[in-house]
C-alpha cells in the first residue's frame, strides 16, 4: 500500500503541469520579485533568440537571394539607420496619433452600438447580424464612401478605421452582455439597479472580460484598417507607417519592409502588454487568476 501511495503522489506531481500548475500558482507568491520578472522574461528572450537564429540559418542556407530574403543583420542595420533618421519617428507619430484618435472613436461607437443592440430586442433583430457582416467588409471597399463623405481628409481615414473596428468591439459587448449570469442580474435588479444603473453596477462589470477581449480584437482591426486607410491620401510631406509599409513593398526594399514589420510587431507587443495588464487585473479581482485559494 505504501508503494501504491508513492506512485499516486508521483503521478499527481507529474500532472501538476500546464494549467494545473497555473492553478496552484499560489506558491509563486513566495518567489522573489526578481525571480518572477526573470520567469516572465526568459521565455521571451529565448523565443526571440530562436526566431532570429532560425532566420539566420535560412539566410545562410542560401535558399533565396539576399535581396529577396535579407538576414537579420542587414535588417538590424536598416532598422538602426531608420531609427537615426527623423522619417521613421515622424511616420510613427502620425500613425500613432491617428491610431489613438481612430481607436477612441471606434471604442465609443462600438460600445454604444453594442449596448444598444444588446439592450433592444428590436435593434438586435434589425441590425444585430449586420454587425458581423460589416466586420467582414474589407477596408478598401469603404474607401470610395470615405472619400465621398469626407473628401481627402484624415476624417476619411478615421471613417475607415471606425468601420473596421467598431463592429468587433460591439460584438465583444454583445457577447459579454449575453453571458451575464442571470443570478447577478436579478440580484442587481433587486438591489434597486434599473436602466442605466443596472448597466453601470452589474452588466458592465460582469461583461468586462468579454468587453476587454472585444477591445483587443477591435484594436487589431483598427490598426489593420489604419494601415490600409493611410493610403487613401498620403500627405504631401507627411509620412506614416502605413505609407512606409506599402512603399517599402512597392520599392521591393526587403530590409525596409522587414524593419517596418518589426516596428509594427513591437507596437503590437506594447499594446498587448497594456491589454494583458488590464486582463490580469480583472482576473485577479474576480479570483480566477490566483486560483490557489478558492
Amino acid at each position, binding site marked *: 500500500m505504501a508503494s501504491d501511495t508513492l506512485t499516486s503522489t508521483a503521478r499527481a506531481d507529474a500532472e501538476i503541469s500546464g494549467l494545473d500548475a497555473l492553478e496552484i500558482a499560489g506558491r509563486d507568491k513566495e518567489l522573489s520579485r526578481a525571480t518572477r520578472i526573470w520567469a516572465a522574461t526568459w521565455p521571451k528572450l529565448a523565443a526571440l533568440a530562436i526566431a532570429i537564429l532560425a532566420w539566420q540559418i535560412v539566410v545562410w542556407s542560401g535558399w*533565396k*537571394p539576399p*535581396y*529577396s530574403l535579407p538576414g537579420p543583420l542587414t535588417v538590424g542595420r536598416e532598422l538602426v539607420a*531608420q531609427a537615426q533618421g527623423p*522619417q*521613421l519617428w*515622424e*511616420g510613427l507619430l502620425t500613425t500613432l496619433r491617428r491610431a489613438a484618435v481612430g481607436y477612441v472613436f471606434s471604442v465609443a461607437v462600438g460600445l454604444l452600438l453594442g449596448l444598444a443592440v444588446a439592450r433592444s430586442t428590436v435593434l438586435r433583430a434589425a441590425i444585430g447580424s449586420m454587425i458581423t457582416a460589416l466586420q467582414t467588409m474589407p477596408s478598401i471597399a469603404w*474607401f*470610395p464612401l470615405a*472619400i*465621398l463623405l469626407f*473628401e*481627402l481628409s484624415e476624417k476619411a481615414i478615421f471613417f475607415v478605421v471606425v468601420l473596421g473596428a467598431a463592429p468587433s468591439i460591439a460584438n465583444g459587448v454583445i457577447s459579454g452582455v449575453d453571458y451575464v449570469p442571470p443570478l447577478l442580474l436579478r440580484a442587481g435588479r433587486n438591489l434597486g439597479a434599473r436602466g442605466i444603473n443596472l448597466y453601470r453596477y452589474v452588466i458592465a462589470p460582469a461583461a468586462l472580460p468579454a468587453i476587454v477581449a472585444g477591445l483587443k480584437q477591435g484594436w487589431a482591426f483598427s490598426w489593420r484598417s489604419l494601415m490600409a486607410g493611410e*493610403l*487613401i*491620401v*498620403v*500627405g*504631401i*510631406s*507627411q*509620412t506614416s507607417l502605413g*505609407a*512606409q509599409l*506599402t*512603399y*517599402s*513593398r*512597392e*520599392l*521591393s*526594399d526587403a530590409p*525596409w519592409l522587414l524593419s517596418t514589420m518589426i516596428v509594427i510587431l513591437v507596437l503590437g507587443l506594447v499594446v498587448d502588454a497594456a491589454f494583458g495588464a488590464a486582463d490580469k487585473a480583472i482576473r485577479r479581482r474576480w479570483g480566477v487568476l490566483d486560483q490557489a485559494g478558492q
Partner: protein
Amino acid sequence: ACGDDSEGAGGSSGPVTLRLGYFPNITHAPAVVGVEKGIFAEKLGANVKLDPKTFNAGPAAIEAVFSGALDATYIGPNPTVNAFSKSKGEAVRVVSGAASGGVALVVKAGINGPQDLKGKKVATPQLGNTQDVAVRYWLKQQGLTTTKEGGGDVKIVPQENAQTVETFTSGAIDAAWVPEPFVSRLLNAGGKVLVDERDLWPDKKFVITNLLVSTKFLKAHPDVVQKLVDGQVAANEFVNSKPEEAQQAISDAIGKITGKPLDLKLIKQAWPTLEFTNDPISASLKTGLDHAVEVKLTEPVDLKGLYDLTYLNKALKAQGKPEVVQP
C-alpha cells in the same frame, strides 16, 4: 475652400483652391517637380492656392475626382479611360500630356524571343489595363494565344507591380510587361529587356501619364486650369532642361512621403526610357483601346470629348512651341 462653390463660367473672383493629385513616382516627374520646385505655385499666382495630394494608385484619385474632393490629377491612361467612360463622358477632361514611354517586357535569362515565351508566365499590372492589353496584342501578333483566365500559349498573370518584383525574383513568373520604375528594378533583379514598348509605336511615343481635370472645375475656373497647364508646360521644361535637379527632386519627394528617398541610381537608370512631353498622344490611347477591343478585354468606348487641349495649345503658343492636334 472648394473650387466648385463659386459659380460663373467667366473668370474666378476671390481666392480659389486647386486640389491637385499625383503619385510620388518617376512617371509623374513633371508633377513632382512642379510641386517641389514651386513651379505650379508660381504660375497659379497669389489668387490660387495649390493643395497637392499624393496617391498610391489610380482608383483613389478617380474616386476623389468623382466625389469632388479633387480638381485635377496626373494619372495613367487606364484610369483616364475608366473615368471618362464610367461617367458617360461627364466627369473629366484631359488637358495636357505629361510623359511617354517607360514600359518594357522584361524577361528572365534564357528567353530570347517571343517563341521562348510559350508556356511561360508573364505578369502585367492589372487585367485589362494598358500594359495588359499591350502584351496580349503583341503576343497575338507573334501568333501566340492568351486568355483572360490565364490560359493559352502564354499565361498572363495580372498582379500588383510591387508583387511582380517578388514573384520575378522567386521564379514564380518568367517575364513581366511593366512600367518604370519596375522595369529598372526587374533589370536589377537579373532580368533583361525583350521588348521596349516604344518600339511598337509610331514616333516611339505612347502616353503613360496625362493631366486630368474635373469637368466641373474646368467650367467654373477655366483661368485656373489655364494657369495649371502653363505650370505643366513649365514643369516639363524644367524636367527636360535640368534632369539632374529633377531627378534629385523626385528622390527627395519620395523620401518625404514614404520615409526613404528613392535610390538616385534607379531614377537615373529609368530616366532615358521616358520622354516628358506635353502631348497627351491621344492617338496611342485610342489605338490602345482598339487593341483592347480586339483582344476582347473591353467593349468599344467613345472617347469623343475626352480631350480639351485649347489651354495646352494656348500655353504652347505663348512659348512659341509647336501646338498639338486636338483629336
